[in-house]
């Protein structure tokens, strides 16, 4: 029974060596970077946009109770139901019960990371409900029975040929691997589901407090259909999703679209305020919003890391992460991957279980620069490491090693002495031709590097000599 850390090491090693996979990722990322570059000119001041997003979320998250209550009051006034779920199990049970009470046989679902977090689809399927993922990327990975690969583009690890084969097998009517054609195959397959499903489930990108409406962004229109046609609409959202005002979306929508996919703005930016209104001719009869805690209130209580809750789930941090570009989205083995996942998972799932993700980073800082909400991601990884050393299980050998290391470094003579001994040892070993053999003292380094040149004299020795000579 391997631990998440062991699983991660294994998967990361496999994927890092998989050149075809790396090429696919690189192609996708190149498209993304080009698109982000093109949309830069739409902003007069991108840094000002980032600062505004930061301030909007700071205001919302640091006054979370006030804004949540305002949101709830307004939504309920329009006939919406609000359920506060403390845990994933709590949320699942509420939704499953709702489905059972209403004899729901078919659900159409749009992409939602939080529904992955609570493992909703499996729960419903176990109870005999058919769940159709309607986001194309999610649908593809659902058909392949695998988790989403990436926060924003769940199927970016697959080529069109692989998707064509998949559709040929599962859906039929596939004539080529042209992306345009494949999309129309998916559309045809899902239309019946949209028009016959009893329940639509979605996430929510934002919960707008001053209008009591949830904001939902898609490009495909699946979220629109899922919240218009079925009789019941259920939305699940983390409690941190609130924003204070509807007007905040004027900055958020374009910024989110740029960071997520390099678009000027997404195709459908929707605001939903409840079930159909009394004078409205269509729309769901019931609307339920499930607010999820599941560890968020604990993260909220840490002022140093509270801003991690500002995340607007754009996925930019994954796109720019050099580690993600090598290991891909599945290696993380968690609902939330990449830099945001590495920062977040110890808080949602425990340090002992997930600290390894915070260490699996070179701390390059590309994520922090890319984050449209100015979350200091790589510094939060450092803080997670500090917290792990303080209060989680670290190998005893590592704790001892750093104690010895510290002792050595506290004196320049002892440092020079022991370092000199180590150098001498390496020179002797390499002189005997032991470089890159099992007896190489730097074996873990030289497994993947040529043996380094070991100088005969240190800088401080040379410096002393020079000064003596002059």
């Amino acid at each position, binding site marked *: 029974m391997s631990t998440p850390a062991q699983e991660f*090491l294994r998967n*990361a*090693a496999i994927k*890092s*060596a998989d050149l075809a996979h*790396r090429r696919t990722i690189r192609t996708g990322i190149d498209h993304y970077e080009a698109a982000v570059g093109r949309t830069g000119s739409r902003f007069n001041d991108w840094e000002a946009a980032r600062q505004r997003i930061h301030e909007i979320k700071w205001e919302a998250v640091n006054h979370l109770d006030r804004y949540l209550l305002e949101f709830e009051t307004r939504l309920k006034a329009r006939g919406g139901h609000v359920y506060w779920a403390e845990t994933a199990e709590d949320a699942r049970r509420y939704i499953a019960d709702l489905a059972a009470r209403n004899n729901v046989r078919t659900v159409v679902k749009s992409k939602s990371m939080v529904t992955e977090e609570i493992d909703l689809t499996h729960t419903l399927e176990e109870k005999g409900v058919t769940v159709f993922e309607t986001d194309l990327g999610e649908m593809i990975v659902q058909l392949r029975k695998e988790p989403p690969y990436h926060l924003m583009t769940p199927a970016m690890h697959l080529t069109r040929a692989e998707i064509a084969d998949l559709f040929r097998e599962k859906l039929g009517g596939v004539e080529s691997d042209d992306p345009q054609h494949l999309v129309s195959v998916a559309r045809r397959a899902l239309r019946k589901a949209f028009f016959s499903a009893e329940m639509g489930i979605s996430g929510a990108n934002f919960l707008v407090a001053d209008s009591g409406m949830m904001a939902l962004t898609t490009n495909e229109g699946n979220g629109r259909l899922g919240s218009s046609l079925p009789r019941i609409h259920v939305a699940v959202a983390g409690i941190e999703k609130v924003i204070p005002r509807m007007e905040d979306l004027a900055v958020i929508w374009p910024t989110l679209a740029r960071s997520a996919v390099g678009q000027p703005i997404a195709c459908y930016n929707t605001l939903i305020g409840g079930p159909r209104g009394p004078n409205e001719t269509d729309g769901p009869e019931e609307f339920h919003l499930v607010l999820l805690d599941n560890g968020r209130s604990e993260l909220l209580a840490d002022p140093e890391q509270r801003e991690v809750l500002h995340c607007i789930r754009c996925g930019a941090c994954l796109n720019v992460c*050099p580690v993600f*570009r*090598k*290991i891909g989205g599945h290696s993380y083995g968690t609902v939330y991957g990449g830099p945001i996942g590495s920062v977040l998972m110890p808080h949602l799932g425990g340090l002992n279980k997930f600290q390894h993700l915070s*260490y*699996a*980073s*070179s*701390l*390059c*800082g*590309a994520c922090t*620069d890319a984050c449209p909400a100015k979350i*200091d991601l790589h510094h939060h990884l*450092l803080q997670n*490491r*500090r*917290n792990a*050393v*303080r209060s989680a299980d670290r190998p005893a050998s*590592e704790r001892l090693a*750093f*104690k010895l*290391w*510290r002792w050595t*470094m506290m004196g*320049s003579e002892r*440092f020079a002495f022991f*370092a000199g001994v*180590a*150098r001498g040892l390496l020179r002797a070993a*390499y*002189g005997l*031709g032991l*470089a890159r053999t099992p007896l190489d003292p730097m074996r*873990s*380094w030289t*497994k*993947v*590097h*040529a*043996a*380094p*040149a*070991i*100088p*005969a*004299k240190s*800088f*401080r020795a*040379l*410096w002393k*000599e*020079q000064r003596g000579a002059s």
Partner: protein
Amino acid sequence: MGDTLRRPTQLQKTDGMGSKACTIVEPMKKVAMFIPCFVDQLNPEVGIDMARVLRRIGYSVDFPEAQTCCGQPAFNSGYWQEARPLAERFVKIFGALDADAIVCPSGSCTTMVRNFYPDLLAGSSRAGDAAKVATRIFEFSEFLVKVAQVADVGANFPHRVAYHDACHALRELRLKQEPRELLRHVRGLEFVEMPYCEECCGFGGTFATKFPMISSAMGETKAANAETSGAEYVTSTDPSCLMHIDGILRLRKSPVRTIHLASILAQTAAPAEAEPASRGADAQGAAGKVAR
């Protein structure tokens, strides 16, 4: 250089764990060198070469021998309790110096002192010293261009050279143009940009030992990009990156070699300037890193 009085210039530091501003008031003549522990032991030529360049442009150079390490390895691994005494020792040694600036041939070590010491030593008796030292420490290329305000250090290196943007130098110290400006003024040097020059090389300190497969995959990409650029040499501000990239380049028997920025800048046309002691490593069983 001259004795002209220059107006104060503000150096805006990054928003690391706090924002710093630094004021330079007039031309300085005396600097102290902070030589990172692994440079001291594994890349001594980098320190020798940096001293040579600094002297050439008119600075007297001091090396406080009591120094050992800034504490970054422990800090980055989360062992802040172990890093703290080292940080206190560092600011005690460097805070007491007569020098006007501390110059370091490593972006990551400079970052540690400037961006992370203030938080690491918050509440300690050395917090004031830490703040002072943080405003006086510079990465080498940053010192040359922004403080000494010299872009042409009289260097000669007739080769095609690409520059790897080391992550700390790029994103923590916000250095992008400075190393390039220095390289552009080197006689005979043909500068080429590598594809994905800002992408991390994969060293990341203990990351390389904890996750060697990911680290080396990232290094391979960096090595391949260096080869694609057609460069003969890859250079950078950070010897740790170069050690990693070099080990991978030599493993794949690449024609590309690595060289630290200080070692390029130390090269002049006159061979008499070269000091035998700095002639790379008299290495056994492995090719030397610096071609002269």
